């Protein structure tokens, strides 16, 4: 599931990833303490997440269930970063991280495979 989540939405997802399924009310309380959001604001963000398919709403009591795992969201962020910074060349990113600028053809192939696997 490739959906872009804003920081505010990731924050809500964080709460769910840490605590598992939680009621919207509790999420609002936690976030009020952590970042100072009003109840309305939290609910607005939750609704956005639901629209994007990141959260699933379970009745009764408006329980929020994360429909995206943390890894999936992270993979998406990485993908986006690569696209933005390296014009989609994943191998360059890895090379950069490894501090190397010249890679042999095989090494590049290996990296590409690795990245493809991660991206799935």
């Amino acid at each position, binding site marked *: 599931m490739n959906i872009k989540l804003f*920081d*505010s939405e990731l924050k809500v997802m964080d709460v769910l990833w840490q605590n598992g399924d939680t009621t919207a009310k509790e999420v609002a309380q936690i976030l009020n303490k952590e970042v100072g959001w009003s109840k309305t*604001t939290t609910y607005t*963000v939750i609704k956005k997440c639901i629209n994007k398919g990141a959260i699933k709403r379970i009745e009764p009591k408006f329980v929020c269930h994360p429909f995206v795992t943390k890894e999936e969201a992270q993979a998406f962020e990485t993908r986006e970063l690569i696209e933005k910074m390296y014009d989609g060349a994943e191998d360059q990113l890895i090379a950069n991280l490894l501090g190397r600028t010249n890679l042999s053809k095989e090494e590049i192939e290996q990296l590409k495979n690795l990245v493809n696997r991660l991206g799935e």
Partner: protein
Amino acid sequence: MTVLSMSLIAVIPILLIIVLRALALNKLPKKLFVALWGLVLIRLVIPFTIPTSLKTDQVIRPISNATDQANSIDTTIRQTVNQLTNSGQVSEDVATHSGFFSSISPLFLIWIVFFILILSFFVGNHLRCLRTYKTALPVDDPALKNWLVKQTWFRRVQLRQSDQISSPLTYGVLRPVILLPKTMADADIDQTRHVLTHELTHIKRFDLVFKWLLIIALSVHWFNPLVWVMYVLTNRDLEMSCDETVIKKFGNKITTSYALTLIQLTELNSKWTPLHSHFSKHAIEERIVSIMRSNQSSFWGTIGAFFLVIGSVLVFSITPVEAQSLNLFDQIETAEQIYDYDEFLSINRPYDHITMATSAEDQLYIEATAFTDHLVYAIIGIEGPIITDVEVEAIAVDPYIEKTLFGLDGELKELAPEGNVRYFLYRGKITDLDVTNRIQRFFTNDTDFLKSVSLRDYHQRLIEFNFALNGSEYLLTTMIENVSGQAYTFLLDPKDHGEGFYDQAILTSTGIRFSGTKSTFEDDWESPDFSITIVRMKEGPIELDSDQIGIISTEEFTASHSRGRSFQTEQFYNDIDFDRSKLDLTDVEALIINGVTYRLNN
């Protein structure tokens, strides 16, 4: 002041500021321009006049002309409407003045539609943006937060970051929040401090309030293109003024780095949000140039500009004011004093039971009344304890057809008590009960309403006073009679041996009413033509001739005609209304109606 005249008056100042800006933007402190715009803004939003007895001189004349022109546009429209509804009206039952119930002008409707549209656009946009802003996350940098706390005094400013904005902004008047875009997370500390100082300056100067006032002015004056120009330019000047402050605080050495910061931030600019510090390409260029040239503002330039501001304040604030009239309300301090005015007013002492109201604790009665064309005066005595404040509402009613005629806009003032009776003076001015009409009249400065209605036409109708005190309500009623003011009664000249049809003619500054009882009038009722000559002592006579269409008169005197009959008094009357002309009553010697002379009753 009407909206139209307020708008026209602002045209010249706005043009002046635009020219000044084009010539000397970078040589003068930006704060000056903000101050000048502020003055114009006040003029646009608040309708006030500073009373002055200055004669019109070169400077003031163009402004008063603007007001006159605006007024004459209004009155021409109004007159046309009136004329379409007035000519040749015949009213049977109740004495009404023509033009009392005028329709709501379509111009006013268009204005209010656009006003609401534009205002809602801005408000809606703001609320939408606010929802995004509220999802911002706190900033973790403790050094930054410390620095921020040191900068602000009584209002705590919150610092937050959001990945959904592309350049820094600030919102919230009472609890201000500075939002930094996420892209600034890696900026160096100096850059961030510059940006924060800019936003803090906005906060300290309450620029958000300024911006809202601009929006209100824009909504009210949407039809004036110069106000739109002012809106755009003022917003830019507000930004540049804050830039100026940043450079003043950190010194000229940072100009390059600050300019670069701004350029970096605009690389990612997105949607148009009018309420916070966002900017378009042209505006950015202006800002960059102004920052890079910031050390050019000269000392003499500032001095000159200071005097310009003083001069502008005078020019923008003075508008010609109308002459004050005799103010009875302020001058009467005791109940007895009203009788001092019996030269000017007929004072009535009503004795009907309806002028009294009693309860277990209190007794209220109307001691005296006096009426002029538009004002009702009453002296009310109250016996008994008064624990709460006294409040009163008054209306005029027609008891025969059980209808409320109009409202009264009144004030109550306590006079000196006598014995155990407390006295109050009431003064009420005729006002339209229909709120829509009243709003419309405010915006079109309609003074013709008062010209077209007079208490004189409501002879023997009732004024009802609703008093509230000590938790109870009391109803006092009195009859409208002896309406005074400048009015002269002309009676048949005895030399004519009572051959005229009309018994009398009453002349006021706004018209003539000539009336007669049934027996003398009936023949004349059949033929609607008449001719009147107003004979004057110093000036020449004024001829008014009526025919099928309307009244033909000499140029200075346009008039309209209506007639009717009163069932109670069996009087037939003809009303001639002078539309806009005024007559000097002291100059009138006699009236000749259809060849019969009527002389002043002395």
